[in-house]
């Protein structure tokens, strides 16, 4: 094998491993939703190529209000779906859209765009 081929092979394999690590092995602590006066746990979520924050920690048994603000026109993110809570909402660009739900037992639930390409996670923690 010529040196250039060895270099391409080693760099290529390293890049493939790097891609897998980068996309599939991310670990985030997430952001805890803050309590507000009306008893809700509230968190603003920015929608732009993804959800920021994309992991939200909430306490079980207390109502949650996620405030989605979409700052892009790409059609992919025009709807947010919280399938486990039976909730969804269209997200017009530049508008804050509240989505409310009651988290039950502790566990993890995804929220996604309609096509499941953009993903976020709600971690329900015991009270």
């Amino acid at each position, binding site marked *: 094998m010529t040196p250039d081929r060895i270099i*391409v092979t080693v760099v290529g394999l390293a890049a493939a491993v790097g*891609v897998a690590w980068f996309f599939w092995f991310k670990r985030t602590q997430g952001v805890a939703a803050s309590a507000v006066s009306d008893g809700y746990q509230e968190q603003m979520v920015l929608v732009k190529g993804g959800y920021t924050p994309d992991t939200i920690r909430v306490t079980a048994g207390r109502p949650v209000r996620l405030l989605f603000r979409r700052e892009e026109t790409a059609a992919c993110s025009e709807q947010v779906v919280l*399938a486990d809570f039976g909730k969804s909402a269209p997200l017009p660009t530049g508008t804050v859209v509240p989505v409310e739900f009651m988290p039950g037992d502790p566990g993890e639930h995804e929220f996604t765009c309609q096509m499941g390409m953009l993903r976020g996670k709600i971690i329900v923690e015991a009270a």
Partner: protein
Amino acid sequence: MRKFRFAAVVAVPVVLLSYPSVVPFVGDIFPRGSAQLKALWAVMGIAALAVLAYSGNQFFTGAWQGLRHRSANMHTLIAIGTGAAWLYSGAALLLPALFPTADMVDVYYDVAVVVTALVVLGMAMEVKARGKTSEAIEKLIALAPKTARVLRGGQEIEVPVEQVVVDDVVVVRPGAKVPVDGIVLEGASAVDESMITGESMPVGKSPGDEVIGATMNTTGSLRFRATKVGADTALATIVRMVGDAQASKVPIQRIVDVVAGYFTPAVVIASILGFVLWYDFGPTPAFAYATIVAVTTLIIACPCALGMATPMALTTGTGLAATHGILIRSGDALQAAKRLDTIVLDKTGTITVGKPAVTDIVPAEGVDKDTVLSLAAAAERDSEHPLAGAILDSAAERGVTRIGVSDFEAVPGHGIRVSFGSRPIRVGKRAFLEAAGIDPGALDDAAARLADDGKTPVYVAIGERAAGVIAIADPVKPDSAASIAALRKLGLQVVMITGDNRRTADAIARTVGIDRVVAEVLPQDKAHEVRKLQLEGRSVAMVGDGINDAPALAQADVGFAIGTGTDVAIEASDVTLISGSLRGVVSAVEISRATMRNVYQNLFGAFVYNGVGLPIALGILYPFIGLLLSPILAALAMSFSSVTVVSNANRLKRFRLQEVSA
């Protein structure tokens, strides 16, 4: 489309100038290795950069935003693909010394430009087609009237519909829309409810009847009391329920979601490995081949087709159902409805009207029908027995003479005795007459025949003589038999469940063409009977009202609640039939099957497309038939695949339902 037009205009000269072998004069004017060719490449490079920056900017910003979240999407693939083609070309132009051989020094600006143009065009077509899938819900929203005429301070005034409050008296003129839900106080008219219930015939309305907001009054005037306004109206609830259903997930989507989660990074990895393999083992110029294979692999992959396959079909299918007065609650209900093999129908209120009525009057010799009914109505006037209402309604309908009676006496379980002058009138069971020494004579034969047909015979006697027999039954809805035949045609076994005695149940079952009957079931045991059918390995739907049958609806694989006008949000049900007709069950099963068929077609198409397209893009056919896909063809295929998925979902809108005639 401006972005596409710009890319297309730039693409034409860039493509023509990129193929000196196809366009001969290009080779003559710009010979290989000349300064003129370098200048041309520089101009093409700048033009291609303009296309990437203007037409393709959403791919780069989308990819960047995705990378910040450590996620990859279609934008990532297109951005890396077109970006790699442009960078390779830039390197060939500015740093040719980097390339091991001279024949590797070439540019691929045409790839960057044409791929951008095609993907932008595909996305524009997809957005347009996606808009069409949600037309049904938009049409529903557009039904909402803007104003209402209400009585305020004795004056009839027009107000915005948002200002109508519960208990307002609302006036609906001929040809006007009913603004909110309510109960008719005065007037008579026929109202076209087709937009909500799917029933094509206008429905007669008189005092006491329910009217649904957004329906169209025809010729008469109505005054009604508003009972549901704003977000509580049937229309608002329907729009909300359809919206929620469209955003829910078909169970199969959960598998797709897992695949989609790994798909895009996997394509990036495949493209890198493809590059390595082609560089190490491919023909020369290896770097050029490896780049083309890597770029083609990135471009051909279509995560969008995969992602859109089920949501698009679900949106169109649930919207189609709503336009026929069928509310499918979720994707789960839709998938379960597709698999059904048994339909359990509650008798009362589902197959039958749910209200007893006089069906036959058999007078004794020398007595006419109206006299029999008149005598019975006189006796039953003060009765609270459920059958009394049927006799009084029939008497009012036929306009029989009212006669005055006295000395009302009810003998529970047997009948009623009143006095008409000096003569007694007796209405009740045969035994009640027999106890008074009255012989029904020939009426017994008629009574036995009526009972065989599942009807309840009521004897009427005046003085010491039997006057006739009145048959009372809960009449079968006009379209029940045809709907049941249509369900059987769909391959479903139809089972009737009822609390009635076996004889009545069998008679009704015979009339409507049902061969399996579960009779004498207590209301609380219906869910148990559904469970028993499920234990036989059947996938069971239960059709009933949302209140008495709630446990059975919940137990069934799919619960169909027969709607009652404005009360559409029936909790226990998976599917609500607003019109209350069994025809809705037939339509719901057909729509569910068609929608799931569409979902499978889309998923099959998306998986096959990616499953076949990716290996071809990686050059799997090259060793055998020398075929290597061009990135431009890959872009064409990719755009076409997502447009095909959406167009296939839109095809559902033209789905023709089976004709069920009463």
